[in-house]
């Protein structure tokens, strides 16, 4: 069984869709392509899948794309501070400045 899902390029990144698809690698295969203003996702389910199962998985997949989108925002915002904290974790001096 095959299905196609579209994601608005203005809102979603290819990265988020790819990461979400990876998480479903044991449930379906996905081919992602760029298509004007959207990304399209060709989803192929194993032969014995029912419509209901497929619909449920597509729903979960869409949710997962949203989650991946959040993860991207977090990563973007926190990368710098993460490196700062790690640097201090491994430095002898510690974070507390001498005043």
């Amino acid at each position, binding site marked *: 069984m095959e299905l196609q899902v579209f994601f608005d390029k203005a809102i979603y990144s290819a990265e988020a869709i790819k990461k979400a698809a990876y998480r479903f690698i044991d449930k379906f295969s996905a081919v992602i392509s760029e298509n004007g203003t959207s990304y399209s996702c060709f989803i192929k389910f194993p032969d014995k899948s029912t419509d209901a199962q497929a619909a449920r998985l597509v729903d979960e997949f869409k949710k997962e794309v949203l989650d991946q989108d959040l993860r991207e925002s977090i990563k973007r915002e926190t990368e710098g501070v993460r490196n700062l904290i790690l640097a201090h974790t491994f430095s002898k001096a*510690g974070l*507390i400045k*001498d*005043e």
Partner: protein
Amino acid sequence: MLKLYGRGVVENFTLDRSRLFTLTKNSQIPIGERQDKALIIENGSAPEGFGAYLTFDATKDLGQVNHLELPEEMNYIDEGDIARISPSGRIGIIFRKKSPNNTFLLTERCNHYCLMCSQPPKDHDDSWLMEEAIEALDLIPKDTANIGYTGGEPTLYGDQFIELITKTKKALPNTAIDVLTNGRTFKDSSFAKRYADVNHHDCLLGIPIYSDDPARHDYVVQANGAFDETMQGILNLKRFNQKVEIRVVIHKQTIDRLVQTCEFIARNLIFVDHVALMGLEMMGFTRANLDKLWIDPYEYKDTLSRALGILNSYGIRTSIYNHQLCVVNQDIKSNYVKSISDWKNEYVEECDSCVKRSECGGFFSSSKKYRYSDHIRAFKE
């Protein structure tokens, strides 16, 4: 409750200033050692040479100078106690040899303005209190197990505070010290370092953390930025291996996050030496803010058990102070401490028939007077 301060009737006073005296009942000590001692007269004989003479009856003429006739309720004074006596006949017992908790108030100045402060801050020069404490160091018996320094905020003295600890170490090398401080001054790591360099063998800094929520902590102590400064202070102190106790006062403003606060301590401050979970004392500002602060301990006993359970799990030494046995759960028993200073603690009518009275810390006299739990009941056999 003991009356620690009083005024006596003076006879033949020649004191020109307030002075500290060690109290004694021994009229036979060598003449050379009498000058800085005040003799408590029990049998009427008043040999000459003592700095002062204290009586409790209407003995009129001792034939000595500096005779002070004290009110009857002060007749608990005893050998080895230390008193300040002023020219006008005011007397303050600043050290009692038999008391396990002798505490010196070093200042009333403070950079906190806690909702439940028992010693409301006053912004005036009271550095004489520090001088008196330093003076007393020479009189305190060398075998004293423990003394306390409190405020106000003692570290506002800056390096003078560190000098006090240094002098205490020198004068009383075997005595443990408890200091009550908000810890903020130690955010300056060079100050923390200078303090650590005194290298006192047993000085415990009791520092308050009232909530894991910085806004709430700052609200309780009425000082913006206090939480972060106190935390930094504690981290600095532990970096220099100093002893730190966390003190949490439990009331309506802190109870809702008490469990989270203890989790916070367990996760972030696991290296502290002791945690004290304390009931409210009905002194000072507490009475003015009673409606904001009062919660019956009986209502929070399960929360207290949970909070304590966390600290116990993580192996943090913890004591429960200022609670009565009948308003806490039995599972806190091994952490329960009869903490209220002997000159403050009392019992209420319900306690008369209680079989656990001797194990119980009882009440602050202020609590007895102003507000205590509605659930006080006697344990029967």
